[in-house]
């Protein structure tokens, strides 16, 4: 038995892997995520609207998802809040944009450079220098302009408020957003999958992932070369709590055949072991993986269905799900942006309560963030927050073991034979330590 500690960079924040080696493979693993910034405590005692400014500060890469979970939790607590279709659509659009931004950066900045460390000569992906690396940064900075159009800025906008959104916009704003979405779709087709739209759509409907070219084709080849297509499986239990209409629906998959709906009361937190400051969250007492793999599997993405059948929830499947989700999200955004033209005259906002001092109640907000299901819970008494509680996607995926079961990522790493593979499998969950220990 030998214990090896590895500090992970190229993740959001930092994480430490403690690998316990024996007989040439990982016998056990502990994922440790350092210090917390105490955001939930900062919220207590403040007027509830302050949460719209403070919760996005949990995370620089997915702060917008925190804003959306927060506004939903506040609306739930206020009760009977009506939103115009326009406000709903715009919120959906900006939330989805943030995921696209995340997925592009994650693949080009965090995933592909790992193959350089495995000895591959892929200079295009080299940090600070590579052509592809630079192009990806450019594409992700383009797509967030859509959030800026509707929400003022990215990162850290607070434009979604109970009752709607703070901004109003014109048809040419929508058109500008559409043309940005188009340019990112072009990037996806040209670079990520290396083909025209027609070709991609036909491969998609048949789920022919082997036919994909471009950087995803390169990724598949590298996975097969390094035998990463089969490793990195966890429980194969998948969960999605939020919805991104029309491409993502909530539900869960127990690992058996049937897809099931989700029962919120079955989500519970249990005590965590001493090595971790991260909570343990279980559904129906069991660990579940959340994120793009769950979403794309549950919403029957043909590519992911086939990949799952062949390789289960492996490293390769997980990475492909996140990358191919970009297209599904782009499609949804374009459709919604077109839909906005007809709604331009609707108000952006309705004031949802009489007097702030009269607002009391409990609320829950659940959305899909880039890394999976994000839950905010709030208690408000006479307009003041008395309790705030956040369960991030990373708690589901990177959280530690409970008495009965290993954490999802822990389970996926056990059995690997190469320390770099262990890091890569961990990164395939899209590690966000800043979120995990808010």
């Amino acid at each position, binding site marked *: 038995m030998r214990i090896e500690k590895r500090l992970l960079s190229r993740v959001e924040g930092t994480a430490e892997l403690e690998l316990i080696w024996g007989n040439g493979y990982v016998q056990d693993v502990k994922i440790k995520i350092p210090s917390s910034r105490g955001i939930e405590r900062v919220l207590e005692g403040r007027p509830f609207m302050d949460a719209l400014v403070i919760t996005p500060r949990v995370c620089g890469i997915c702060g917008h998802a925190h804003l959306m979970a927060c506004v939903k939790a506040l609306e739930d607590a206020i009760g009977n809040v009506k939103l115009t279709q326009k406000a709903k659509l715009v919120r959906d659009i900006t939330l989805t944009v943030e995921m696209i931004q995340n997925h592009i950066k994650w693949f080009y900045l965090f995933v592909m450079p790992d193959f350089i460390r495995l000895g591959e000569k892929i200079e295009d992906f080299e940090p600070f220098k590579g052509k592809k690396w630079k192009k990806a940064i450019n594409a992700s900075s383009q797509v967030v302009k859509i959030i800026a159009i509707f929400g003022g800025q990215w990162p850290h906008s607070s434009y979604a408020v109970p009752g709607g959104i703070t901004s109003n916009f014109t048809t040419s704003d929508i058109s500008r957003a559409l043309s940005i979405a188009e340019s990112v779709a072009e990037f996806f087709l040209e670079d990520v999958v290396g083909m025209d739209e027609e070709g991609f759509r036909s491969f998609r409907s048949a789920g022919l992932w082997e036919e994909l070219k471009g950087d995803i084709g390169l990724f598949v080849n590298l996975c097969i070369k390094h035998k990463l297509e089969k490793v990195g499986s966890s429980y194969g239990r998948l969960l999605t709590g939020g919805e991104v209409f029309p491409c993502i629906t909530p539900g869960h998959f127990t690992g058996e055949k049937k897809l099931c709906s989700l029962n919120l009361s079955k989500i519970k937190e249990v005590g965590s072991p001493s090595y971790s400051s991260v909570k343990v969250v279980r559904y129906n007492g069991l660990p579940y993986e959340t994120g793009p793999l769950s979403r794309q599997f549950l919403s029957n993405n043909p590519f992911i269905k086939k990949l799952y059948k062949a390789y289960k929830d492996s490293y390769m499947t997980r990475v492909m799900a996140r990358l191919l989700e970009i297209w599904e999200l782009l499609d949804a955004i374009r459709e919604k942006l077109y839909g906005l033209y007809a709604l331009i005259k609707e108000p952006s906002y309705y004031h949802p309560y009489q007097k702030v001092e009269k607002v009391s109640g409990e609320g829950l907000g659940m959305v899909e963030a880039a890394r999976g299901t994000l839950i905010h819970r709030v208690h408000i008494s006479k307009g003041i927050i008395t309790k705030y509680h956040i369960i991030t996607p990373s708690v589901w995926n990177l959280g530690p073991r409970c008495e009965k079961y290993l954490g999802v990522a822990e389970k996926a790493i056990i059995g690997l034979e190469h320390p770099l593979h262990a890091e890569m499998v961990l990164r395939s969950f899209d590690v966000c330590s*800043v979120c995990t220990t808010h």
Partner: protein
Amino acid sequence: MNVLWLQRLSCCGNTHSLLNCETFNALLKEVNFLFHPSLSLESEEELLSDITKGNVKLDLLILEGAVKMDDQRIKELCYIAEYVIAVGSCAVYGNVPALKDGNVCGLQYRFKEKGGLLGEDFVSKGGLPVINLSGCPAHPEWIVGVIRSLSKGIKPALDSFGRPKEFYSSLTHWGCTRNEYFEWKIEPESLGSKKGCLFYNYGCRGPMTYSSCNTILWNGMNSKTRAGTPCFGCTEFDFPRVGLFETKQFAGLPAELPIGVSKRGYIMLSGVAKMFAPERLKSED
């Protein structure tokens, strides 16, 4: 110029802000990033020990995130670097991570108290105190602008909080599309409008906050106040204040007036403004 970017207690928002910079790729041709924890392949430990041994020259240290008061590593590196930048309000003032933890601070401040990790008299080798780029996050053009100046040997002039005057000498209010409504004291009927000024009812800190958010737009596109969200004053030491969407009133007046405006002047002007406000500003379309 050799640049080292490190992170402590932060949300990494300044990193993502930086990556949004339109000319980030061009910057990479002008300066050499030794290491960035979210981006680099190399090991942080090896590089840092090379720097402390003097094998690698450190021209610019950029720190993102608040620090623990006993962070010797960062302290040591600050004394080695020619220049030190604190990027984002966490590294500048301590911000959110310092609110509930008395052992957490910024590099040279803890909120408004001078001192922080390095002490009030700290000056880096190049002869400047910590260059503070406050903001939650800091705007990419401010970050890149200062890096470029330093790489050309130009030392930025700093204000009393160590912030480059080039970006922090005017108010957020300057350039806001709602200025005309501010002048005539017209508030919006409700949120969600392109019209009306957010100072009177929604807590806008634009007239009390130094930043160039409305002259150098975010993502090259927009700003909070243009999008109908009040400015929360995130470049100032007292961010996040309690009651961020509220304008505190005192005897019928905003409890805080725009910087430099006297109470008497405000009362006189606003009376006149309300009386003579043009009709065209009062209707929604």
